[in-house]
């Protein structure tokens, strides 16, 4: 996969990202280009002139593009000081449910209105001086365009969530160069957030004006021409007739004459942007705060607080009375649905990457490492033993626990799998999130853990190398593995999760700020 880089990054960017159709028009390259050679206009990235006439060597546009492999490890450094890390959620401090206290904001956002409330509070208290958000175009309400909000009123027109691309990183560059803003809040989908973190890891001068990053929980974005064609041909809906689109378990399309059509995600999966099909980031794992819908609740949002900066803004807003907060433990069904969607997105992404690899189709450089490690990572893992990296304090469940109890433990501790240990302290099975999800809500109180658990366990010995552990997990497609005593396989010594292994590979990354 080693690509030798050209002197002028645009040549590589064109070959590996733009021509294969992976560009999502975020505009990070435009904002970062020191000679302004790139411009996003009319849904296309234009190369205005040959920049090699002006620079001898420039890696910038390739490095900051969210779909290239450059600086990916460094971007993690912005969130790794958080105490918790879990599969599907990433690194974080806290997960809560929140809603704007102002009813009007909740109505406008068709959800909790949390992002709008946070930004409004930020502007009013001078925590930020502007916010880069997206708003609907008046003529076509489902299309998005980026906007720079300078005063609270600007924000009210950009309060809802949509599913189409928006050149927010370009707007960030505009806010810095043309508006001269110095404390900017950036709101975007996971790929937009990745672009901004890459700019930060690259230490580009425009990043000095970034104050906080709010990520939006995102399943995928649609290609406007493809989705509208699909809707016209299969459901007789014209693009201009659509008033809004919402997502809970299905996409609900509301037309201007108040017809509602429900479409399942799998039906429209082929009409998403190319890059979205291989993206594993559901929760914007690099943001300061991530916000998303809390289905089945309609006026609350899930909020994941990752960094100190995010915590500061959020706690400040709560103290000022701008937000209502409640614990996610009160709503296990919300947590369950949320994790289910994250797992689904990851599954789709891995399937698509493997399919493309088999058919020799292009894959964005950032995702090529989805299923393989670098040689230096392999050697690092070979040097470590299972007993050195395992968590000894394992959270276990009794085989007699009900599925309802398991779900509430999951909602509280956010682990995805729990070994079953009986009264004799013997390991008898393991129960995972997938097992719990399969039980219908009505039967959760009666079904016991031992009925749904896996009895045939995949385990390792303490002296096994971390590389063996990783390979075993990949081979069996499991997210965690149990470490048992070599002499007594029923004696549980510890647990290792996939996230633990990935964390070890990244632990040398220090926080940049």
């Amino acid at each position, binding site marked *: 996969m080693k690509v030798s880089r050209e*002197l002028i990054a645009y040549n590589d960017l064109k070959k590996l990202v733009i021509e294969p159709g992976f560009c999502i028009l975020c505009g990070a390259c435009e904002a970062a280009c*020191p000679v302004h050679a790139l411009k996003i206009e009319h849904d296309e990235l234009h190369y205005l002139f040959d920049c090699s006439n002006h*620079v*001898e*060597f*420039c890696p910038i546009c390739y490095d900051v593009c969210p779909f290239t492999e450059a600086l990916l490890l460094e971007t993690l450094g912005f969130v790794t000081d958080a105490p918790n890390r879990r599969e599907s959620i990433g690194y974080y401090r806290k997960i809560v449910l929140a809603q704007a206290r102002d009813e009007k904001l909740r109505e406008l956002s068709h959800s909790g209105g949390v992002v709008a409330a946070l930004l409004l509070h930020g502007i009013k208290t001078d925590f930020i001086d502007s916010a880069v958000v997206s708003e609907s175009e008046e003529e076509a309400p489902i299309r998005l365009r980026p906007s720079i909000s300078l005063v609270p009123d600007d924000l009210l027109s950009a309060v809802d969530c949509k599913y189409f691309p928006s050149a927010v990183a370009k707007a960030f560059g505009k806010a810095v160069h043309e508006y001269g803003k110095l404390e900017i809040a950036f709101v975007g989908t996971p790929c937009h957030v990745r672009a901004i973190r890459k700019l930060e890891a*690259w*230490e580009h*001068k425009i990043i000095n004006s970034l104050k906080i990053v709010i990520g939006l929980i995102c399943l995928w974005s649609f290609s406007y021409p493809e989705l509208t064609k699909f809707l016209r041909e299969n459901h007789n809906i014209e693009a201009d007739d659509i008033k809004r689109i919402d997502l809970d378990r299905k996409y609900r399309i509301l037309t201007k004459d108040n017809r509602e059509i429900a479409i399942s995600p799998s039906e429209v999966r082929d009409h998403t942007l190319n890059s979205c099909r291989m993206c594993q980031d559901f929760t914007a794992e690099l943001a300061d705060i991530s916000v998303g819908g809390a289905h089945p609740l309609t006026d609350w949002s899930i909020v994941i607080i990752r960094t100190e900066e995010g915590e500061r803004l959020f706690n400040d807003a709560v103290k000022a009375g701008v937000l209502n907060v409640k614990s996610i433990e009160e709503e296990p069904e919300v947590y369950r649905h949320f994790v289910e969607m994250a797992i689904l997105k990851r599954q789709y992404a891995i399937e698509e990457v493997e399919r493309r690899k088999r058919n020799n189709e292009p894959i964005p450089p950032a995702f090529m490492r989805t299923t393989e490690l670098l040689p230096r990572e392999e050697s690092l893992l070979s040097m470590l033993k299972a007993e050195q990296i395992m968590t000894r304090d394992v959270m276990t469940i009794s085989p007699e626990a009900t599925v309802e109890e398991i779900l509430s433990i999951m909602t509280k501790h956010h682990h995805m799998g729990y070994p079953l240990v009986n009264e004799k302290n013997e390991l008898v099975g393991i129960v995972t999130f997938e097992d719990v999800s399969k039980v219908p809500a009505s039967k959760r109180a009666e079904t016991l853990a031992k009925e749904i658990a896996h009895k045939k366990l995949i385990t390792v010995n303490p002296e096994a190398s971390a590389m063996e552990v990783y390979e075993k997990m990949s081979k069996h497609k499991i997210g965690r593995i149990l470490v048992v005593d070599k002499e007594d396989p029923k004696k549980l010594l510890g647990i290792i999760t996939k996230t633990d292994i990935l964390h070890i590979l990244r632990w040398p990354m220090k926080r940049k700020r």
Partner: protein
Amino acid sequence: MAIIKEALRQLFSRPATVRYPFERMAVPEGFRGRPVWDMHRCIGCGLCSRVCPSGAIEMIGKGLEAEIIHYVDRCMFCGQCAESCPRNAITMTKEYELADYSRKKMVYEYKRST
């Protein structure tokens, strides 16, 4: 009459003269003195060299091994190099006492430490 009043006033107030080099005026914020390159941040794009109006900057090589030569005798301290640098690797310091007798000596070289 005003002139005599003024003369008498000046007789008793502090002199306005700054007795350089024994006294120096405070350099204001944002003063553009000699530019300095941080070679840890420099990526060797060559923009500073291309954009300098006086041709006072030379880049030897390109990319991450590039080195910079700054000819202070040609520099006009406009700050365009610092403005154009995408990584803020150039800082305009407050140094202004740069005169010398030989132009050959007014050269600053910025090399890379291995």
